[in-house]
């Protein structure tokens, strides 16, 4: 009997297939979770909330502060998974949703990827990678409260308590690192270039460690060629048809930041910011092996 089946039997539950999607954020993850939730037998969450519905109680224990800690400590990542994404937790959530399998779509899955794939021997990860410049433009606002604070705000921007709490859980350079030494001098653009590269390097590392269970896809495919994206994703996750062969809607059309982008195109950034973005984009271009 497999370890999975054994642990589920102990709690009187059927084995549950757990899979997850990871990205930097700003990759239409809410839409993606909702679309995945439409497949037969699947309960799909966006950051722990079933179908991304934050008016309801979360289906999975919420993760925020653990994200930053997991980035600098593999042990902390393993503890977070043991506490909040164990096989028992996943089985309980699937049972509560009346589903036979569960998919969580979340930014924190990048830092937890190795621990999740280790703790769930049958889990698969879909990593979605967006191009650096458009991520940075969409990741933050320069003024006013950001309703979707995915990336670092400008250090001078006043923040709400909600923004501050989310920021506490965001990955940041480790103490003694070169980036840490420069961090205070960086504005939002440079900080989010760093965030983009580090997050996507985690996705690449997960693919290196678990090549059979990790698939990297371009966000641009998701946005511009949804049929190709869903054919690949359905096969990779072994999803049952939901009636429609391709979920309605294009990711690109549902991923607009409500207040619009406050950061201009890459060519308007400071020379150092442009150079950093180009360097980071090159790093990921060299490192990532895409399946779609």
């Amino acid at each position: 009997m497999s370890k999975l089946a054994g642990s589920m039997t102990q709690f009187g539950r059927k084995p549950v297939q757990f899979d997850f999607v990871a990205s930097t954020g700003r990759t239409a993850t809410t839409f993606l979770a909702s679309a995945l939730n439409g497949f037969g037998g699947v309960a799909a969450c966006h950051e722990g909330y079933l179908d991304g519905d934050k008016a309801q109680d979360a289906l999975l224990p919420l993760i925020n502060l653990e994200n930053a800690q997991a980035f600098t400590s593999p042990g902390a990542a393993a503890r977070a998974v043991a506490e909040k994404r164990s096989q028992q937790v996943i089985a309980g959530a699937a049972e509560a949703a009346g589903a036979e399998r569960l998919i969580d779509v979340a930014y924190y899955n990048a830092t937890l990827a190795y621990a999740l794939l280790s703790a769930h021997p049958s889990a698969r990860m879909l990593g979605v990678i967006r191009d650096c410049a458009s991520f940075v433009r969409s990741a933050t606002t320069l003024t006013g409260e950001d309703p979707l604070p995915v990336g670092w705000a400008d250090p001078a921007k006043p923040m709400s308590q909600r923004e501050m709490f989310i920021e506490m859980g965001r990955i940041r350079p480790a103490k003694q690192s070169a980036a840490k030494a420069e961090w205070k001098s960086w504005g939002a653009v440079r900080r989010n270039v760093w965030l983009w590269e580090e997050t996507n390097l985690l996705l690449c590392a997960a693919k290196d460690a678990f090549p059979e269970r990790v698939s990297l896809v371009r966000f641009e495919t998701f946005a511009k060629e949804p049929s190709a994206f869903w054919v690949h994703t359905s096969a990779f996750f072994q999803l049952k048809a939901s009636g429609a062969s391709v979920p309605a809607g294009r990711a690109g059309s549902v991923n607009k930041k409500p207040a619009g982008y406050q950061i201009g195109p890459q060519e308007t950034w400071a020379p150092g910011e442009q150079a950093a973005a180009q360097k980071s984009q090159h790093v990921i271009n060299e490192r990532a092996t895409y399946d779609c």
Partner: protein
Amino acid sequence: MTAELSMGKLCTVIEDGIKAASPAGELTENVTEASKMGAPREWDSLSFVAVFNAVSEAFNVELEYDDAIHFRDVKSIHEFLEEVMAA
């Protein structure tokens, strides 16, 4: 003025921090040694930052974001402060 660390004082500081950030200004239950985020329910992501700042000010400790992970329950905050204030 810096407060001496005690469990009772810490609970009071946390409770006042949550109240300050809560629209109603009252809690569904008192903060005790067993309290954690979500219990009382007003101790949520919004009041978290108020608690973090209130503890920093009351016990005169400089906190960084990396310390936030210790602020999810009273016992962990107490253990963290004991360690920091003894250093």
